[in-house]
């Protein structure tokens, strides 16, 4: 079997890749003998993963969401009571919640284009074969494999008023720029978090872009070159359309990752200064653990889940394949 060649799929850069020729199995499936057995073995193959996801994602999620309608606490001798929408009423009255929403929206709106753009640039830089390409690929990927705890600690040091970043700014500008206390100033804290986050995660999306780039046929570039196109035109008319599917994958993964912002906040700013970096997930963890208000945290989680669902649905609609 190992000798069966992988097919080269049709590549039409201007249009989305056509779906694979529909298998005719569907139309005559019911008539085929062994249909039942196929169903059984199919489900048998799906079952392990499905059961595990059911047991370790769906059930705890439902348990958690159920708590949102009670007054459950992490530690309490008081009986758990059903309280209806109380937690949600409190949540929608809480200015911190709206601030968290705003922060997450800000973070996401900046991160999605900038991080995907930078990741694309990095991917383009190491797409072609050259001496040392493996070295650069490894180095670009390094931040992704480094522990977030270590990374956050390091950036904490660098963001100090007298830290390395301000030293560099000052040196480069011949002492003109006197950098701020990045994480201590409500105006710069979120941008500082954004820079760190992009630095840490861009390597991951670079890899996905690289995948897309490698999938674009070299012949198209040759043809483009024969036509005497400029490099920008090549990018615009060959590369960019060829990345159609990669684009939606990158978009979806960055968005989900951005909306769930938590680790950096937890280590570096704890939501401060003055709520300028707090996020929805951070508020959920803060209420659920530190303040022991499990039910309120569950309500936040439930609202968060619905929000992500809506955002994903909208994105899916906007990036759908237009026939």
């Amino acid at each position, binding site marked *: 079997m190992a000798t069966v*060649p992988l097919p080269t799929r049709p590549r039409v850069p201007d249009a989305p890749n056509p779906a694979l020729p529909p298998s005719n199995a569907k139309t005559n499936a019911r008539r085929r003998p062994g249909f039942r057995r196929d169903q059984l073995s199919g489900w048998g193959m799906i079952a392990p993963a499905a059961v595990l996801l059911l047991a370790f994602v769906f059930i705890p999620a439902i348990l958690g969401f159920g708590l949102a309608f009670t007054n459950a606490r992490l530690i309490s001798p008081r009986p758990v009571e059903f309280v209806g929408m109380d937690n949600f009423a409190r949540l929608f009255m809480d200015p911190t919640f709206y601030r968290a929403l705003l922060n997450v929206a800000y973070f996401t709106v900046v991160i999605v284009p900038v991080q995907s753009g930078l990741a694309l640039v990095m991917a383009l830089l190491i797409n072609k*074969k050259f001496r040392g390409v493996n070295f650069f690929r490894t180095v670009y990927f390094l931040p992704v494999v480094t522990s977030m705890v270590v990374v956050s600690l390091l950036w904490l040091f660098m963001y100090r*008023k007298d830290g390395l970043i301000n030293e560099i700014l000052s040196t480069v500008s011949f002492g003109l720029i006197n950098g701020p206390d990045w994480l*201590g100033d409500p105006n710069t804290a979120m941008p500082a978090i954004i820079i760190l986050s992009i630095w840490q995660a861009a390597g991951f999306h670079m890899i996905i872009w690289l995948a897309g780039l490698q999938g674009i046929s070299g012949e198209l570039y040759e043809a483009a070159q024969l036509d005497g196109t400029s490099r920008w035109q090549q990018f615009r008319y060959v590369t960019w359309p060829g990345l159609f599917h990669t684009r939606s994958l990158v978009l979806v993964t960055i968005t989900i990752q951005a909306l769930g912002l938590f680790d950096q906040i937890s280590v570096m700013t704890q939501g*401060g200064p*003055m709520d300028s970096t707090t996020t929805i997930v951070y508020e959920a963890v803060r209420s659920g653990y530190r303040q022991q208000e499990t039910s309120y945290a569950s309500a936040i989680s439930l609202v968060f889940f619905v929000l992500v669902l809506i955002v994903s649905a909208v994105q899916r609609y906007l990036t759908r394949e237009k026939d």
Partner: protein
Amino acid sequence: MQRPRSRQDPINPSTVSKQKDRPMNKTLTKVLATSIAAAALAATLAGCGKGSASSSTEGSGEIALWTHNAGNPEELAAVQKVVDSYNGSQDKVKINVQAFPQDSYNDSVVSAAAAGKLPCIVDIDGPNVPNWAWAGYLKPLELGTDLSKQLPSTVAEWDGKPYAVGYYDVALAMMARASDLKAAGVRVATIEQPWTKAEFQDALTKLKALGKWDYPLDIGTAGTGEWLPYAYSPFLQSFGGDLVNRDGFQSADGVLNGDKAVEWAGWFRGLADQGFMAKKSGKDSTQDFLNNKSAIVYTGSWAADKAKAALGDDLVVMPPVDLGKGPKIGGASWQWGVTSGCSNSEAAMDYLSYSLKPENIAAVAKATGAIPASNEAAAQIPAFAEGGANRIFMDFSRQYAVMRPETPAYPFIATEFGKATQDILNGADAQPTLDKAVKAIDANIKSNGGYKK
């Protein structure tokens, strides 16, 4: 810089198809081989891990004890030694020690509590004890020893009963270099005569004028979690405010948002506004102080030995500032309690009684550099004996310690106070910020039925 090449990378998929079976299968084989080897290793580990893994489960005659000092070999060894000597002293029960890293200890224990899997004996941070007792996780202590000999801040009570007892306490202090103070023309504060608010202002102004430091003062504003109420609520109390009205613990109104509190907030904020301290200090205040990035550091007795080793006689240890009602520091550190699910609580109590012998207290306090919980124990440690180098911390503890409010609402109050403090430091208006915290605290108390027994 990048020229378009006529040939694509040899690894692009269209060429991969021709060479795919070799490298790809090799990859797969490599991944699988590595994984299987590792899986076998894991299976072996599981085998040998099991025997010891059962240390947290309690077999007949075995009692588990959880402590917060993994990664602190000195303190852990001292605790282990007490346990070993107890285990050797009788043959009915055996205590098993399980150590957790301190920073995340509370998360570990709370998860275990939520799952109903607590051990017999737990180590708890003092101010959290009433919350635990109220929730029914702890049994009142019935010890054979006299708890009245303990330093008051090492016994945690709730509802009139003792629920936890500790071997030591820690104390907050201000440390500085005598040479710096002299250069600035500032006197050294003493227990007899602590700095007043005006003197403190004057001292900071003079130190700042020396131009040696961006910020002369470091009170650990980068701290998080319990550090915030532990370190900063004593300032509030010295002004005359408090975290909650201690009469019944039903409301924070009037104490956390009263005139005194607003005055405190203005003063606190002013320290940053006048450039005396950073709104967000370095991650390690002591280290910054030793590296001469600050003139005065406000930290705990735990930093004393390190500072002393680095600075020698130039180090001065001073009481916190008297902001009106005398200097204040937070009382209570780590303490031991017995869980209510413990099936052999008699043995657990017996162990605790045994562990409170002066020599045991002295051994643990010595290992941690903390203030021993009794005078008898202190007499056995030269640094804390009369005239010892660290005796001053014991005096601070005796004279200034204020317990954090002994109410089950404390963990909630602590988070609200911590957030309010950070917000005020960063420029939020004091009155509305404090009002907001009071509102949240009062609502929390009310929704818990007043945290009444």
